[in-house]
């Protein structure tokens, strides 16, 4: 049993000239093909002790409520065969409504929100579903090129069936006018793969008088019919 190899153009190349900081940090030598073994097909398993109920609500912090457009983000995490992946650790982080991160190195001249840390996490349920409530992040400038702005996005980090399933990605919003100009979003040449990073507005998930819903499904590398025995139960 091995994972299928990745289809050319559906994942970014390491050196992407339009993304300036890839120049000195991306490998230039040919990658070496590693035969997949149990050492890579297995991976860490996380359990309920890594997350608490409140970790999936990013709108309350330090005894107050965050400012901005409240949204619900939900979806299903699947493997390449479309099988839902239960009990997967999903970690998210993002800028606040003004486009500012709560991080000492973020010098963007936009206000911090004392009631928004921008950090969340959760486990998928038995059907592979996750859901969290947050504030829609703002766009923000960066210095990659003249007048460069990142489109609004939420960072996602996921652990799947094995070490090779590891994924860190970003979720974008539909209709964002900055998307065509963003070298990070556009690093993927396969159009269908690229558009899979854009969530969809979800009327059914929208809660009247409360919050807009967005749907974002994620596919992780892997296709095991039978997980390794040690991965069967969360511990």
């Amino acid at each position: 049993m091995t994972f299928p190899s990745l289809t050319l153009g559906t994942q970014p190349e390491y050196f992407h000239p339009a993304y300036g900081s890839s120049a000195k940090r991306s490998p230039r030598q040919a990658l070496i093909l590693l035969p997949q073994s149990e050492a890579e097909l297995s991976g860490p398993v996380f359990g309920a002790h890594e997350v608490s109920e409140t970790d999936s609500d990013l709108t309350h912090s330090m005894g107050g409520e965050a400012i901005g457009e409240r949204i619900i983000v939900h979806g299903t995490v699947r493997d390449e065969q479309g099988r839902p992946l239960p009990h997967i650790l999903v970690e998210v982080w993002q800028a606040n409504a003004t486009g500012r991160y709560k991080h000492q190195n973020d010098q963007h001249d936009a206000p911090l929100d004392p009631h928004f840390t921008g950090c969340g996490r959760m486990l998928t349920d038995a059907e592979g579903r996750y859901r969290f409530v947050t504030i829609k992040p703002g766009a923000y400038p960066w210095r990659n090129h003249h007048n460069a702005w990142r489109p609004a996005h939420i960072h996602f980090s996921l652990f799947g069936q094995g070490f090779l399933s590891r994924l860190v990605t970003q979720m974008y919003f539909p209709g964002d006018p900055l998307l065509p100009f963003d070298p990070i979003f556009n690093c993927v040449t396969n159009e269908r793969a690229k558009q899979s990073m854009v969530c969809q507005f979800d009327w059914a998930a929208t809660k009247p008088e409360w919050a807009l819903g967005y749907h974002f499904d994620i596919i992780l590398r892997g296709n095991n019919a039978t997980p390794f025995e040690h991965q069967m139960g969360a511990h």
Partner: protein
Amino acid sequence: MHTIDPNLKQFPTPSQTVGPFYAIGLDYLNRQIGGEYRITGKLTDADGAGIPDALLEVWDSKNQAFARIPTAADGGFTIESQAFDFLNVHVLMRGLLRHVHTRVYYPDAAKNNADAVLNAVPATRRATLIAQGSGQHLTWDIHMQGAAETVFFTT
């Protein structure tokens, strides 16, 4: 609404950079494998400068143990580990749209000379995957580029 066309192959969601502010979401899970071995090293860029805003994730499949280790201000890092043949390592950082995958081997010449993965690596680059030293205190640097660029794998 969100629909999946069953006639189209579904690709794994593309990777995007972890960015400079990953600590907001990921720091809570910083942890070591733990054990009496210390692998210390430095992560450097094309100019040989230390990379201060990177993250190492280590998988020790033998002991089913995971480590998440941010690099220090000078690019330095320490992996605390149990006895090992090799560890699988992911490196994530701003500038990498997709994490790189490498391995660090324990400096056991007899074992390593017989290792199929090491033998598939050009001899001139093999040393980039093997920690130096002996006993429990080892050193291993990761070079993203340059003459001593570390071997990175594709799977």
